């Protein structure tokens, strides 16, 4: 640290990087164990119910990890559209995570594509030939060809978008040209529109369609809110580890964690608002063709799963994240992020499984979606780590990088977005990066 700083003498020396060599094999182990459970579950389900339970379990796991890909894609898009500075430091992570959408999540979609006629009752030949009104009203979207066209279109958009955004981002690492930033902004402009459409189509066609009679305009937004919530919790923990390992320390300062925590808090409230609105409006509108979806979810143990979501997905994280200091307190944020993973899993089961398990939460089957999640999680983590190692850990020539580092504040006032930096305890001294040398 070349800058003389009266206060830096008090700072304790940063702890040395953790030895993570033991954890290197974890993704491989998850693939092995999860893969075994998946195969056993597949055979078991084949014998018992013609692969239907397997299809539903796979769908739960797939929608869970699709959330991470889409949530990360949204963070990249939002970063470019807002011309943000602070999030440059975490953008490369999000780009890698978003690029899991294609081809990896597309490949993980294949079992759903194959099992679709078993998972989605409306795809059966009887209903396709003699559709009831609820299905007929959704033609031509809810036809076999409609289903596959939507799937191909969604993954095509996600491929194009994540590929272009990552291409220009990596190109900027070499050239440092402003043109790359402008290109990424251009792709984000059309991308955010198609992102909204494809995410909504995905949520409707793959998740809501397990009960095809239902309709709700909020559904895509709810899945979006839960997805970004999960992604923020995940990005927070990954960033925290990379900071601890001195990988991102040079480009991070404390406020990034506060900002990520604030966004997590905002999406906690946003999810609650959206899902409560959906419930409240549908329940009180008294239309049987809508209310049935919630009636099913009050039967048996599903009622308590609903309460777990009310309290666990909203109240607990809301109250936990309320205080300003919690958002940058790692000892509290790690359990909160882990809790977010659990709650998003419960949310996915609550949305998908009542169609198949009408009596209540399928405790006897819960090992199967969890096993598939271990498999997918291990696989995607493996790919993510490989992607991360293949490029600079952050966009090293991004023109906004110096802002992310907290070293440059052209107009650090309350209204310019530099609000916290200016209130730094160092009294106008340039904020130092946390990093090592």
């Amino acid at each position, binding site marked *: 640290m070349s800058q003389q700083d009266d206060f830096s003498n008090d700072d304790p020396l940063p702890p040395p990087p953790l030895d993570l060599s033991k954890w290197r094999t974890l993704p491989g182990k998850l693939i092995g164990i999860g893969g075994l459970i998946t195969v056993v579950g597949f055979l078991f389900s084949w014998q018992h119910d013609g692969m239907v339970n397997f299809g539903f379990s796979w769908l739960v796991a797939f929608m869970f990890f699709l959330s991470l890909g889409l949530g990360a894609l949204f963070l990249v898009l939002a970063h470019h559209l807002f011309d943000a500075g602070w999030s440059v430091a975490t953008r490369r992570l999000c780009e890698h995570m978003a690029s899991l959408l294609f081809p990896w999540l597309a490949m993980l979609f294949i079992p759903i594509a194959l099992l679709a006629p078993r998972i989605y009752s409306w795809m059966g030949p009887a209903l396709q030939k003699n559709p009831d009104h609820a299905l007929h009203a959704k033609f031509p979207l809810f036809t076999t060809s409609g289903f596959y066209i939507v799937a191909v279109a969604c993954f095509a958009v996600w491929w194009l978008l994540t590929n272009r955004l990552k291409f220009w981002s990596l190109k900027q690492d070499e050239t440092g040209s402003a043109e790359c930033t402008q290109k990424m902004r251009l792709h984000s402009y059309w991308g955010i529109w198609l992102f909204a459409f494809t995410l909504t189509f995905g949520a409707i066609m793959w998740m809501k369609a397990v009960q095809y009679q239902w309709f709700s305009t909020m559904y895509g937004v709810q899945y979006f809110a839960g997805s970004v919530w999960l992604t923020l919790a995940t990005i927070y923990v990954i960033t925290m580890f990379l900071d601890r390992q001195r990988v991102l320390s040079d480009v991070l300062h404390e406020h990034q964690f506060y900002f990520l925590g604030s966004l997590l808090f905002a999406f906690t409230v946003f999810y609650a608002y959206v899902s409560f609105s959906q*419930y*409240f409006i549908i*329940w*009180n*509108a*008294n*239309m*049987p063709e*809508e*209310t*049935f979806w919630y*009636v099913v979810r*009050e039967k048996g143990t599903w009622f308590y799963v*609903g309460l777990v979501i*009310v309290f666990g997905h909203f109240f607990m994280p809301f109250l936990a994240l309320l205080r300003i200091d919690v958002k940058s307190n790692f000892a509290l944020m790690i359990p909160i992020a882990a809790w977010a993973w659990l709650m998003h899993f419960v949310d996915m089961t609550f949305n998908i499984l009542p169609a198949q398990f009408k009596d209540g939460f399928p405790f006897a089957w819960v090992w199967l979606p969890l096993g598939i999640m271990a498999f997918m999680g291990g696989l995607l983590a493996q790919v993510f780590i490989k992607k991360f190692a293949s490029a600079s850990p952050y966009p090293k020539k991004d023109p906004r990088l110096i802002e992310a580092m907290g070293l440059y504040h052209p107009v650090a006032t309350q209204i310019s977005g530099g609000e916290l930096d200016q209130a730094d305890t160092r009294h106008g001294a340039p904020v130092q990066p946390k990093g090592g040398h």
Partner: protein
Amino acid sequence: MSANPKPYGLLAEFDNTADVLHAAEKVRTAGFRNWDVYMPFPIHGMDKAMGLKNSKVGWFSFVGGAIGYTTGMLMIWWMNAVDYKLMIGGKPMFSPNAAFPPSYELTILFGSFGAILGMLFLNRLPRLNHPLLKHKRFGLASHDKFYVVIETADPKYSESETRKLLEAAGSKRIEMVED
């Protein structure tokens, strides 16, 4: 007004906040129970100086809120699922989730009732008159004077000793207030 008025308490006047704060500390240390301090504006640290504990109003609000929530839930359940069953929109007769918002509103309403009634009860309000209000100078308690009043009903009260204590605390004007 009775012809033979009973003494209500000793009223000691103070000119500034520091004096009355220290006087309150002295009176508290002496172990009085039936006494109070009157001032034109809140003085920081007075609660501590007087040895006042947290208000008990919160408990009244809590009980009120609990009664409100229970009332709301029971009312909606009884009306929809017992007294006048109507099948609407294919929904069950009673769902605690759907009954939550109105029950919550009753929680707030009864909670605030509990708070205001509890406050009145703890302050022994409403009452029409108070002996201090007859006192000519007491009106200055809403202007620029500070008063400590020790009631004769206090077990530790003794006319001469209490007067001495208040004098020692720095009051230049001590008067007996009659009921």
